[in-house]
């Protein structure tokens, strides 16, 4: 059981092909203008530069169905709440039309933290509040395929984490298939069973979340993603010990971990510094022995070093001056000192 999508982008003459399994969450990743929104709109049946040549859900051809007859609900990036309805009326709009479950309202309202907003009008909501309501409205419409276009861009980190957790639980519980468009690596890693990266309307990579390892988003701070395994907890230091390619890493203690999933660590390139010898006295706990894989001198004062750590890659951003003074060469053994790690569970 799956969704199969084939289309040609008539504007840049590029073909797109996707086969997505049911009950999975596919994250579509890519810079602005890469065609993410067009893809979702084409699947939902809205106007799009894509000329769809095939669209089947569970082998049923959907191409000639209008949006309201497709088993697909798209929630657009700008929330698009109905201005003449209260928040509560917005939430139940799709529910009443698509045979949603009225008893879900309470659960979704709590999960998204929008209880105090129910009687408000959309014009009085902040951008983040409106996005929560729009997400709730789409969830309550009870779709088999839920398409979310950057649904959390106006929320702060904490709220985003909470909502991603709720969404992840909800879609597993309800067996909803999700296609989720985002720019944000942590969001992608937290939700995805499957990741597709797009550039210029083309599918660049498609696979498990590992395809994001070493992904460079030109609009975001440069960072690398490593996969790791949890070894043990150090209660007295409130740290957890992870294993990456045979090397120990210590991170702030991990709670509520789903042990069946691999762990992904996001490390900003600017938080990685290099030393030729193993530093003996340092406040930095995490040291990884690496080999220099590539040196890319940037336009400004900085240089980006790709480090090979077993089969994985770690990016470091250091100054050009440091490259010269350390006399870095491709193939050289170095120690990477990692200052900051953010963990995506």
């Amino acid at each position, binding site marked *: 059981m799956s969704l199969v999508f084939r289309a040609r982008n008539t504007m840049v003459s590029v073909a797109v092909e996707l086969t997505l399994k049911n009950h999975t969450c596919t994250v579509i990743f890519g810079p602005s203008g890469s065609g993410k929104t067009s893809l979702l709109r084409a699947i*939902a049946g809205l106007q799009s530069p894509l000329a769809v040549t095939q669209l089947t859900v569970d082998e049923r051809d959907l191409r000639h169905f209008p*949006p*309201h007859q497709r088993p697909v609900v*798209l929630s*657009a990036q700008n929330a698009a709440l*109905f*201005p003449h309805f209260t928040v509560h009326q917005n939430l139940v*709009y*799709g529910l009443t*039309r698509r045979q949603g479950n009225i008893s879900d309202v309470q659960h979704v309202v709590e999960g998204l933290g929008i209880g105090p907003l129910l009687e408000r009008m959309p014009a009085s909501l902040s951008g983040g509040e409106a996005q929560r309501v729009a997400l709730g409205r789409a969830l309550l419409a009870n779709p088999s395929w839920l398409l979310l276009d950057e649904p959390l861009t106006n929320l702060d980190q904490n709220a985003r984490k909470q909502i991603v957790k709720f969404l992840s639980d909800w879609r597993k519980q309800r067996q909803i298939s999700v296609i989720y468009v985002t720019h944000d690596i942590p969001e992608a890693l937290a939700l995805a069973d499957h990741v597709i990266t797009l550039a210029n309307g083309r599918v660049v990579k498609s696979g498990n979340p590992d395809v994001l390892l070493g992904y460079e988003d030109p609009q975001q701070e440069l960072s690398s993603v490593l996969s790791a395994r949890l070894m043990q907890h150090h209660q007295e230091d409130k740290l957890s010990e992870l294993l990456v390619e045979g090397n120990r890493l210590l991170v702030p203690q991990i709670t509520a971990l789903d042990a069946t999933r691999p762990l992904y660590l996001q490390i900003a390139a600017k938080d990685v510094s290099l030393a030729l010898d193993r530093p003996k006295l340092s406040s930095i706990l995490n040291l990884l022995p690496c080999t220099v894989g590539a040196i890319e001198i940037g336009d400004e004062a900085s240089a980006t070093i790709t480090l090979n750590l077993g089969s994985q890659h770690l990016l470091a951003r250091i100054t050009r001056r440091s490259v010269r003074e350390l006399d870095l060469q491709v193939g050289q053994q170095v120690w990477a000192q990692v200052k900051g790690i953010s963990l995506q569970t």
Partner: protein
Amino acid sequence: MTLDVLTITLKLASVTTLILLLLSPPIAWWLSRGHSWSRSIVEAIVALPLVLPPTVLGFYLLIFFAPNTALGQFWQALTGSPLSFSFSALVIGSVIYSIPFVVQPLQSAFQQIPIGILESASSLGATSIDRFFSIVVPMCKRSFITAGCLGFAHTVGEFGVVLMIGGNIPGETQVLSIALFDSVERLNFAEAHAVAGGLLVFSLAVLISLYRLNPANTHSSWVSR
């Protein structure tokens, strides 16, 4: 002058407004969704009564309604009475004459509804008819009221078309604006003052209430958000 004149005027304006409120939304909706040659032509036809002398419109309608035309004969066969110089003829004339006053406010209100709102509704399971009644009508509620009031007031105030096709039959097709003309012709200035003053006050009252309803700066402001 009898009370009939007032009753007929109000009845004509009410029936005309009702028909216009049923007829105009689909036209205004179609006109508001994009640009094409056919739309420009329909838009021009709808706006024609704004620039055409009402007597021109009345003249053509008079000819069109005559008992020897296809429409005149069809009407005669259908209802057993001639169309020209009847109340029904007045209604048809008034609908045509007042249509821009109803279509145009609706069209501009429809154009201000962000397409994303309608797309959301559609993706959430609403059919096009459902979207029209659950989203478009409530979002444009004020414009519907404006359009209805303008259509009503404009029909009350019409003269040229009615003069040409109504025949000024007391108790049947004689309306206020024509009764005023009659009064003046008969040099009955007291009666003329009463009618003219009444129409003036009525029109002013309608316009003041419309501007109260739609203050210039808040008009549809939440629609364009």
